[in-house]
Every structure is written in structure tokens, then in C-alpha cells.
């Protein structure tokens, strides 16, 4: 069991990479934020533009991570929560948003968690092909 925990730790370190740099939010970022906020009545919402981590032009809005805490996830399995978010952002995903990483928690799960969200894994150059 300890080994299981160790491997989880090592997994997290694989995924840990530099945090986002600050910049003003773009149009897509704002749209994502307002859609999720309005429809899911998010208690906590982070929309993180991770595009800078990838081989795309500066200021691009292609790779996002969203952290959504909502009562609407209550009783829904993970896959349904993700589908809910994916469906809400369907237009964005069809028109330029290339990667969407989702953390979807209920307020209770969020309160019980350490509230630290790992950064997405580093790009390996698959973008654009």
C-alpha cells in the first residue's frame, strides 16, 4: 500500500511543472469562464490558459485547464461531470480550443481537498499535426 502511495506521489511529480505566468485574460478564456459560471453556478472557478506551455503563438488560447466546484456535480460520476463541462464548451472545443483539462468537484469534495491543482503535463510536441 505504501508503494501504491509512493507511485501516486511520483505520478504527481511527473505532472508537476511550472505554473502559469500572469497575463490578461483573452476572449475565449472569458467566454469559458462566463459559461461555466452561469450554467453550473460555480462556487469556485479557475480558468487557466496553459497555451504558453505549448508550441503555439504568444497569447494563443488553445490549451486550458478549468477547475469547477459546483453543487450540480453532486451524485454524478466523474465521466458525467466531464461530459457536462465538455458539452458546455462544445463550440470552443470545435473552434480552436485544442486541450481541455478538467477538475470537477462538489463543494464538499473541494473543501475536503488540499485545493491544490496540479499543472498539466508538459507538451511533447504533438500539437499542430
Amino acid at each position: 500500500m505504501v508503494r501504491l502511495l509512493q507511485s501516486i506521489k511520483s505520478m504527481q511529480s511527473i505532472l508537476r511543472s511550472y505554473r502559469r505566468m500572469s497575463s490578461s485574460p483573452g476572449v475565449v478564456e472569458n467566454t469559458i469562464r462566463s459559461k461555466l459560471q452561469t450554467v453550473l453556478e460555480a462556487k469556485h472557478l479557475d480558468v487557466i490558459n496553459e497555451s504558453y506551455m505549448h508550441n503555439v503563438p504568444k497569447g494563443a488560447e488553445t490549451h486550458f485547464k478549468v477547475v469547477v466546484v459546483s453543487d450540480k456535480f453532486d451524485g454524478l460520476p466523474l465521466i458525467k461531470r466531464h461530459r457536462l463541462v465538455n458539452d458546455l464548451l462544445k463550440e470552443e472545443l470545435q473552434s480552436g480550443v485544442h486541450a481541455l483539462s478538467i477538475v470537477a468537484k462538489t463543494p464538499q469534495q473541494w473543501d475536503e481537498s488540499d485545493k491544490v491543482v496540479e499543472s498539466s503535463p508538459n507538451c511533447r510536441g504533438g500539437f499542430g499535426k
Partner: protein
Amino acid sequence: MNNLLRRNLLPIYNNAIKLTYRPFADAATKEKIDKIVKNNKVVVFMKGVPDAPRCGFSNAVVQIMRMHAVPYDSHDVLADENIRQGIKDYSNWPTIPQVFINGEFVGGCDIMLQMHQSGELVEELKKVGIKSALLTAAEESPKSEEKK
């Protein structure tokens, strides 16, 4: 004028072609994917190959599979545009990687990572007769179990 025409009409024209031909490609691709996902207990659609993933999210899934020593069939969506779009339509899921267990879509990188962390992955693998290497390791060291 020519430029204007090209800019405005060409995309419409191209889309029309896509719309016309999609259904044919879709049916064949869907059938192909159906076979792929049912042919193996665990199937991963990813960018690149397990030895050289070409996307961080795909790499994370490969690492998880490696940790559990799961035998799986992998498909590089970058090598086949039909599969790349087809798999998204098939599972109604907009991103790559995608993991299938026993022919059923399980999730992408985020979900696999969470299932790995919660121990759910070990259980799901058990259901299809795959014993996770992490489980084997845990059994072989009962002392560390007590410590926990």
C-alpha cells in the same frame, strides 16, 4: 474581388465537401473503431506511441499504464486523420488521449489520473481480469501494509 471570393467562398465550399463525404467515412471509421475497442481489454488512443508519446497528456496515460503493468493496445491518432476525428465522434469526447476498458470508454487523462489516485483503476482492471502490478507489489510486502 478574387481574394474576397477565395476567402469567403472557399471555406464554405470545403465545408460542403466535408459535410457531403463525412457520413460515408463516418460509418466505415465507426465500424473500424468498434472492432479496435472490442478486440482488446484495454485500448488507448493517443498521440504518438507508448515509447514516444507526442503529447504530455498521452504520456501521462502511458505512465499510468506502465505503473500498473497493464497490457494494452495503443493507436496513434496522429498517424490516421480518420481515426483522430472518428474516435472523438465515436465516444462523444473532444480530446485525446482516450482509454477504453472492455470496449467501454472510460475517460481521458484527467479521469485516468483520478482513477489511479483513488484506487478505482485497480478495481476496474480487476473486473476485466487484469491484476495491477501495484496490487501485486502491495501483496508482496504485507509489512508495509501494516505500517499504513
